[in-house]
């Protein structure tokens, strides 16, 4: 087969350092590059969140030390409004596009897809490299926007016009917003290149015997996610092009007639700001599932592995992933109930939104059934997987509340929504990423992470997340708006100040706890104990390769798959798991120790 031939042609010669680690075409290296860059961005996004909480906890307070570090954003140590709004916007943008999307699909996706399907690399390694190398320029452009006049974009991660369309509308609406759009356009290209590779690779390069219905759910999650980004991101790209024309070319796609800026009429007319919201959320809602489907898949694998039980209802799990993906294109209007959208559409979108809760619930119950009466192995990965379940349920329930227009009219743009999506999306996806890191770190780097530190990290993070985000429901209930710079100017919000202080302190603790993880990660990278081939006694293909896998992953022959991915605790077997590639029909009691390097004869 052509792809094998082209891969093997490369195997012979040694690559230079440059080609091996920097402009590498090896999916494992690219995956790790994506993951490390995302980690860097996560720290940055986290810092911005600390700024937000600093302002909300102690509005108007002066912090002389910070004032010296950020003379323009915090003159005299007091955060100004433009800097606050830029922090909110950039926090959202960075966390959603530059951390979670890149980490889950670029990092885990790249590393895991070829290994878990028994391929040597992606279908088109060069395109894969290109995909990664669009990411750093996008970061540089995004971060540069902090230093231009007016500062970074301040219109929120959703970039609603007219704030985002009219350069004079607010400080951050100037060059900062333009850079934001350009940076995002670059990243969209990176995602496009990635998705092309992931879909093609999963469809075409599966090992012999690995039918679609034998794929691990991680791969299903990544596969369907790639389809979502392939179809949804172009719509944002088109919207971004139109918005750029509005900003630079003077067109009026999103700007209606009759707007005033500082009592000067704007000479745009004929546009429709709701068009942006439609196009944005046509991407935006699938995008939130881009961030949750890979976690759902990873969690399924980690739960089954540590419960030592087959995943419950595999077919339903696959079916609900596909159903969620399809439905996610039909619900975008639930972000627009209060926008003045046609009321009949509100009803339609309410219906589809309530329907999408059904496949999500199916998955939740299947996970619970998988845990039912299991002898659970509480590794750090497993703890984070269980944490994911808790967070996903907490956040999913408030989703159902928000899905109903009459209720949402009250909650729209309050901290209740902030709590909803920080549970269901942000924290849940981060928990799954931690679970995935603890679980696959041995495969990635050939060393084990420290379990003791992992457990400390888990408990501090778990408690920290609930302490930070749960009170936000109440703040939203009391009418506290999101993205608000100075809540204390409203009488009805003044009573919430102690709560906000509590939330801010919880957030600081939460942020600090992440340094345990960073310490553990980097220390284990160099000092961790050597990992064996299959430390978790898992069934899936990636554990057949050495830890870390060599260039091109497999020895002479590709593995042949004999069964599905969840043969845990099979009856009448000595071992409590049966690897996907283990030769069929091993008689009871015989040990399978000392098998070859995953290269089973066909």
């Amino acid at each position: 087969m052509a792809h094998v031939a082209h891969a093997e042609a490369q195997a012979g010669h040694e690559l230079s350092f440059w080609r091996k680690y920097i402009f590498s075409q090896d999916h494992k290296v690219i995956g790790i590059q994506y993951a490390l860059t995302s980690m860097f961005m996560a720290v940055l996004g986290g810092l911005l969140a600390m700024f937000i909480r600093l302002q909300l906890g102690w509005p108007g307070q002066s912090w002389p030390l910070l004032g010296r570090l950020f003379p323009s954003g915090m003159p005299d140590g007091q955060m100004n409004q433009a800097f606050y709004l830029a922090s909110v916007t950039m926090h959202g943008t960075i966390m959603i596009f530059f951390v979670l999307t890149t980490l889950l699909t670029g990092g885990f996706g790249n590393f895991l897809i070829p290994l878990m399907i028994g391929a040597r690399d992606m279908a088109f390694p060069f395109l894969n490299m290109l995909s990664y190398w669009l990411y750093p320029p996008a970061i540089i452009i995004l971060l540069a926007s902090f230093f231009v006049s007016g500062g970074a974009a301040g219109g929120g991660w959703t970039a609603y016009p007219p704030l985002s369309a009219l350069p004079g509308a607010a400080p951050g609406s100037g060059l900062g917003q333009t850079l934001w759009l350009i940076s995002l356009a670059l990243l969209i290209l990176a995602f496009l290149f990635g998705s092309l590779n992931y879909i093609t690779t999963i469809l075409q390069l599966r090992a012999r015997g690995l039918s679609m219905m034998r794929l691990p759910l991680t791969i299903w999650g990544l596969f369907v996610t790639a389809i979502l980004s392939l179809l949804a991101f172009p719509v944002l790209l088109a919207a971004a092009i139109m918005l750029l024309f509005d900003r630079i070319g003077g067109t009026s796609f999103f700007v209606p007639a009759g707007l005033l800026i500082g009592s000067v009429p704007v000479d745009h007319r004929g546009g429709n700001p709701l068009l942006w919201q439609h196009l944005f959320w046509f991407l935006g809602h699938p995008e939130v599932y881009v961030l949750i489907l890979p976690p759902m898949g990873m969690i399924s694998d980690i739960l089954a592995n540590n419960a030592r039980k087959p995943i419950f209802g595999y077919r339903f799990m696959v079916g609900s992933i596909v159903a969620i993906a399809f439905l996610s294109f039909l619900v975008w209007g639930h972000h627009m109930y209060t926008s003045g959208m046609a009321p009949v559409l509100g009803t339609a979108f309410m219906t589809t939104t309530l329907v999408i809760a059904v496949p999500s619930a199916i998955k939740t119950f299947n996970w619970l059934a998988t845990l039912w009466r299991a002898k659970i192995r509480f590794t750090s990965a497993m703890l984070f997987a269980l944490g994911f379940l808790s967070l996903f349920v907490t956040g999913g329930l408030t989703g159902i509340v928000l899905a109903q227009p009459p209720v949402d009219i009250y909650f729209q743009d309050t901290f209740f929504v902030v709590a909803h999506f920080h549970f269901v999306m942000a924290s849940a996806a981060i928990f799954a990423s931690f679970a995935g890191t603890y679980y696959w770190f041995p495969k990635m780097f050939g060393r084990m992470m420290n379990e003791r530190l992992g457990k400390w990290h888990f408990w501090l993070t778990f408690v920290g997340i609930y302490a930070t985000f749960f009170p936000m429901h109440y703040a939203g209930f009391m009418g506290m708006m999101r993205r608000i710079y100075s809540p204390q100017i409203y009488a009805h919000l003044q009573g919430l100040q102690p709560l906000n202080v509590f939330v801010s302190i919880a957030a600081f603790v939460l942020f600090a706890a992440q340094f345990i993880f960073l310490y553990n990660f980097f220390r284990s990278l160099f000092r961790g104990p050597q990992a064996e081939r299959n430390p978790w006694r898992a069934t899936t293909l990636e554990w057949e390769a050495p830890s870390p896998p060599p260039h091109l992953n497999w020895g002479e022959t590709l593995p042949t798959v004999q069964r599905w991915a969840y043969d845990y605790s099979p009856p009448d077997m000595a071992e409590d798991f049966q690897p996907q590639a283990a030769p069929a029909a091993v008689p009871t009691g015989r040990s399978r120790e000392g098998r070859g390097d995953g290269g089973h004869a066909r």
Partner: protein
Amino acid sequence: MSEALQVREQHRTTASAWGGGESPFAVPWAKLMMWLFLLSDAFTFAALLTGYAAMRITAGVWPGAGMKAADFFHVTTVVGPMTFILICSSATMAVAVGAARRGDHRTTVRFLALTVLGGLAFLGMQAYEWTGFIREGARLTGFVGELGGKIQPMFPATFFVITGFHGGHVTSGVIYLLVKTIQASRGRASAESVEITGLYWHFVDLVWVFIFTLLYLI
């Protein structure tokens, strides 16, 4: 699972097109990837055209009271022939692909070159059409001159953005085709790669079908 059952299932799996180790579609990966890219590009165009539809529906009268879009363009003398040329270039491309598959290099190169010419002619006529439109007073921000107040400002804007985006695709297509022609003339273009180039070119034609209908005719 019993042993016999397992053996049977394994046979069934490896015998199926979806059972791994081969392409379920019986196509090379590069061709599948091009199809997927085109699918995604279709969504970009679809979103632009949806934006155009939203502008038009919101405006009500389009492009202005008592006017038709077709009044502003040379539908029978320029745009019609442009469409004609693009269809012809798609046909020559199809012949080039067919010839490449049969190993007929001379025909491949000749028809690839014809396709390039078709693309260039299309671009030239598009430039002519733009010039005429601009002379009538069309600007990105709206109409200037005597028609200024009577015409929806988004009429020229949508026109320039959408045909411009399509023109960009045609331009990259011409470059792509030129590269392929040169490769083919040196005998270095595989039939598969010519076919993939063809997919892209036909897609550009396919999108034009909708742009022609929605922007010029309706």
